[in-house]
């Protein structure tokens, strides 16, 4: 080849051709795989919702935890899709599909004030009784935290809760994910609000108080703020 590979022209043409080819290829792959990835995200969300009511797959004598495999089946079994609603901060229902509302995205959107956000409510059925699952989202120390709180059919007592986080400190704030933390919420009342306390003895806990995480105060306070801010809206809806 008589092309001078060190010339500027060749270098530019090579660079442009490379970028075009690579860009087109990656775009095609990304579009092709998108449906599969969206499906996985959807299943993950269903798993999170189900974990608030601690759903289990009962297969003969075996009890299986929620996994990607059985999430769809369990979701269909427990969640009453037709009864799920979306409410506004005024406690009135909005004409939206609960599962399609991305509350994390709305929380991040600084232009959307809290009263304009949508509040989805999932209705589930466990052993013949109705449970209401409330998604919550807030801020921890380093990044977003979120969770799901299930309320009993008296629309007052917490039946189950689960929290997760993106980047809280392992061993400290990240402990909100652990069973010992979220089980404290079970049995509390939603109308009075939940207070996070620092209690080494365990005597103060209960009756609207949960023990925060030692060394994870800001995360614990974040959970407190997120839970109370969100529950207020739902209490309004349940009473109205």
């Amino acid at each position, binding site marked *: 080849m008589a092309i001078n590979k060190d010339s500027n022209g060749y*270098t530019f043409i090579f660079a442009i051709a490379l970028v075009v080819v690579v860009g087109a290829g990656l775009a095609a792959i990304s579009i092709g795989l998108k449906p599969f990835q969206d499906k*996985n995200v959807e299943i993950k969300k269903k798993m999170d919702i189900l974990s608030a009511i601690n759903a289990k797959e009962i297969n003969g004598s075996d009890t299986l935890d929620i996994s990607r495999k059985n999430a769809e089946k369990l979701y269909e079994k427990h969640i009453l899709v037709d009864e799920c609603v979306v409410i506004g901060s005024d406690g009135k229902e909005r004409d939206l599909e609960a599962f399609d509302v991305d509350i994390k995205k709305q929380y991040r959107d600084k232009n959307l004030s809290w009263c304009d956000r949508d509040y989805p409510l999932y209705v589930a059925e466990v052993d013949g009784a109705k449970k209401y699952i409330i998604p919550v989202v807030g801020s921890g120390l380093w990044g977003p935290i979120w969770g799901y709180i299930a309320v009993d059919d008296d629309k007052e007592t917490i039946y189950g809760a689960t929290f997760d986080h993106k980047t809280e400190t392992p061993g400290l704030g990240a402990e909100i994910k652990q069973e010992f933390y979220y089980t404290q919420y079970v049995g509390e009342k939603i109308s009075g609000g939940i207070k996070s306390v620092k209690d080494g003895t365990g005597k103060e806990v209960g009756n609207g108080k949960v023990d925060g995480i030692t060394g994870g105060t800001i995360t614990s306070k974040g959970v407190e703020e997120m839970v109370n801010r969100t529950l207020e809206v739902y209490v309004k809806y349940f009473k109205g």
Partner: protein
Amino acid sequence: MSEKVKAPKEPLFSKKNKRLVVEPLDDNNPVTIQVLGICSALAITVSIEQALVMTGSVLFVLGAGNMIISMLRNLIPSRIRIIVQLVVVASLVIIVNEVLKAFMPDVAEKLSVFVGLIITNCIIMGRFEAFAMANKPWPSLLDAIGNTVGYGVILVLVSVFREIFGSGKFFGITLFGDRIEGTGAYSVGYMDNNFIILAPFALFAVGIIIWIQRARNTKLIEEH
């Protein structure tokens, strides 16, 4: 590249080509001798599964990358060759990441940022620059396989040790009973060593492997 085609000069598995695969396993191991790819060896060797998935991902990226670079080696303008290599690694890594997210979401979640960090794995750029830029595609592929296996062997060795003594598991199967409920070995006072799960321990483990390897293979010891 079918084997029926009469190789013009050298057979597909000539001595030289075999050396390309065998040498990185011991005498020229990318991790223990060249001390490349250490960051990932520290980060993802907590469980054997992660180590294997990482090795698989690196095999794909390095294998395909070495071939692509080797095929383009006479076309790449030398002034922008590093950028071209980087574009190739980055695109391959994005492909791996997208595929994992689509078909192995649990593994993708666990490996999280480390898949993206394959780009910074020095072994890859090192092989592109040192080997693929100067050799034909077939030897480049063999070189990639050799180096990845050499890398993978160390990852798996470290991860086997860390998973057994750090989490009391082997391939996710509990070995010593239930830690939380205190059954099995835990009931008589056995404890998992939490230090082993932390990244610094992997450095000790790699160091010990280097020590053992040099004690056995004395030609690796440098003159002082």
